[in-house]
């Protein structure tokens, strides 16, 4: 197990390097290949109608004229050893891990990421709990009442959940529950838990439900399919033959087997969301990682994009690892090697 984890961590680090190189290439190599000059790139990061001198200054300051390898080396060195950076009257130290400074608002990337993480965590974890509980319960009930009105109704709602865009459901739920009925606070009211737990909760209810709706729908369908399959397994018949109550058969025998593959998907989904729930965060104006990265992409803010990409990749790798280990714990047939 330890050897397994060590191996996986090494693989993960390698993967992060590859991801960072790829992101670099997308932002530097491809534009250059398409004929973009360093000046052309720099012109995005200065005020409009900037003088050629100002653009040259930006090229130098952002090192856009250096070969890609040198730039990448600088970036990698910053992560390991930190970096010095001029803010004008003096130099400031960007301590390791230094992911650089935003091209657009000059904020250091790493502290920004850490600052945005709690919002994303709050959103992802809260929504995950809701969708897991709701999705699985609906899926189980649907499977057990297969073909009934309940089943068909649940699956129709699930289909809607899967196909409606969050942007739409989010704005509609805001219009209804926040601005018309006034039950929940409106968009942009996210407050950190440490500041005001009650407000934190109230402000997150709608985003949670909106995000969870999509996933719950997905999970209900998955659970239903898995449950139907499991209920046909021989060992379920055995459990019944022992004289077990149906409730026990479902909860102890069927659910355990059904949930195992769902656990895998769940782990990966949560891992993915920790890299930012772009649509939900944008819709509800939650200052999370997803909102950060979508704005950074729109603003060609390479250091931020790179930082979030690595951050997200880290969570995905971590989620993979956790899922693998958990799977081994849950399913005794799986051996980590």
């Amino acid at each position, binding site marked *: 197990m330890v050897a397994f984890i060590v191996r996986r961590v090494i693989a993960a680090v390698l993967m992060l390097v590859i991801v960072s190189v790829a992101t670099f290439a997308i932002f530097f190599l491809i534009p250059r290949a398409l004929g973009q000059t360093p000046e052309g790139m720099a012109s995005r990061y200065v005020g409009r109608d900037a003088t050629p001198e100002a653009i040259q200054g930006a090229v130098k300051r952002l090192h856009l004229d250096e070969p890609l390898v040198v730039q990448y080396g600088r970036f990698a060195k910053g992560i390991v050893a930190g970096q010095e950076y001029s803010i004008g009257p003096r130099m400031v130290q960007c301590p390791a891990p230094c992911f650089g400074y935003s091209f657009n608002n000059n904020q250091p990337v790493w502290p920004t990421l850490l600052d945005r993480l709690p919002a994303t965590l709050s959103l992802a974890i809260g929504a995950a709990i809701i969708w897991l509980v709701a999705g699985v319960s609906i899926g189980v009930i649907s499977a057990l009442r297969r073909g009934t009105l309940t089943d068909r109704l649940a699956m129709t709602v699930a289909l809607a959940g899967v196909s409606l865009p969050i942007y739409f459901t989010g704005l509609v739920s805001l219009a209804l529950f926040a601005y018309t009925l006034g039950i929940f606070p409106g968009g942009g009211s996210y407050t950190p838990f440490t500041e005001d737990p009650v407000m934190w909760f109230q402000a997150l209810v709608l985003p949670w439900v909106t995000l969870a709706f999509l996933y719950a729908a997905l999970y209900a369908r998955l659970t239903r399919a898995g449950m139907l399959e499991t209920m046909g397994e021989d060992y379920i018949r055995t459990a019944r033959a022992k004289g077990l*109550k149906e409730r026990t058969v479902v909860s102890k025998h069927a659910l355990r*087997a059904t949930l195992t593959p769902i656990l895998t998907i769940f782990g990966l989904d949560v891992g993915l969301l920790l890299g930012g729930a772009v649509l939900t965060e944008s819709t509800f104006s939650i200052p999370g990682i997803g909102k950060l990265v979508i704005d950074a992409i729109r603003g060609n803010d390479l250091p931020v994009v790179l930082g979030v990409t690595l951050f997200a990749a880290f969570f995905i790798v971590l989620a993979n690892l956790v899922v693998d280990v958990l799977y081994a714990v849950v399913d005794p*047939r799986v051996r980590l090697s």
Partner: protein
Amino acid sequence: MTTPSASPAPGSFLELRDLRIHFPTEDGLVKSVDGLSFRLERGKTLGIVGESGSGKSVTSLGILGLHKGGRAKISGEIWLDGEELVGASPDHVRTLRGKKMAMIFQDPLSSMHPFYTVGQQIIEAYRIHHNVSKAVARKHAIDMLGRVGIPQPDKRVDSFPHEFSGGMRQRAMIAMALSCDPELLIADEPTTALDVTVQAQILDLMLDLQREFNSALIIITHDLGVVAELSDDILVMYGGKCIEYGAAEDIFYRPEHPYTWGLLGSMPRLDREPTERLMPIKGTPPSLINVPSGCAFNPRCPYRERTGGKATTEVPQLVESDGGHLVRCHMPREERRAIWENEIKPMMEGS
């Protein structure tokens, strides 16, 4: 066994009367069991044989009430120790399962839950019917594993099914089924997929245990050899129906149905290569949705011409041939016996 009556005949522990289990499917009604009747006493063993798909498993699950609540259409009567089970409430039948009647399933790997240890699964079975602590149940589970011949049962009790060999798994399955001393034990192909030595051990074990508990035992197989040495009576199933029933001796030494002859002929014998089987049954098992008209066996029967066209038009009745020996064939008894004595038996012995 012949005419159903309102109450069970005295002395019979299990009795099926005209049991029918039909499954409505998209393709049509699957008549998996279609009018099955038999009787079994305590301490006795009934062997049910028949090809794959003849309805053996469906019958045994039907007895345990495991089709209840599903889409199966069940009719007829199942009497167990004076109680009728077809009409009984599912929850009542559930309380009988495991304790009053238990089952050893066909494929022990898929029939045991992969995520729970063998011990946990036996403990669970025991504690459903016995209000004891986990520790007591665990001790019992270790006992049971020891009794079925698992070495180091106190260690293996914590193993998972996939960590057992096939034979050990089957033993564990038996230990689980026997953990509550069932009065009726149904073993569904308990030895398929096991090698011959292990097969013999397992069969011996079951007989021993049966004797110990004086339970009624049903052994299901499509392999006549397996039941030969264990069974008191044998029931031959074909297409959801009983086509021959009798004492083991009758079936082995005086079989009267052409299908049974085929089964005997295709018995694997140690002194012969399987390819040299004397009389393999040609053709495929019948569809249970569109059962062949007349005698269900007629498309595969070499003797159907000898029944004067009745084979394809009229369903033969299960008729008593000798004391308790029942056969479902249009051919007259004498002709059947003559064919067996003059044509089949010499061929089987000769080769």
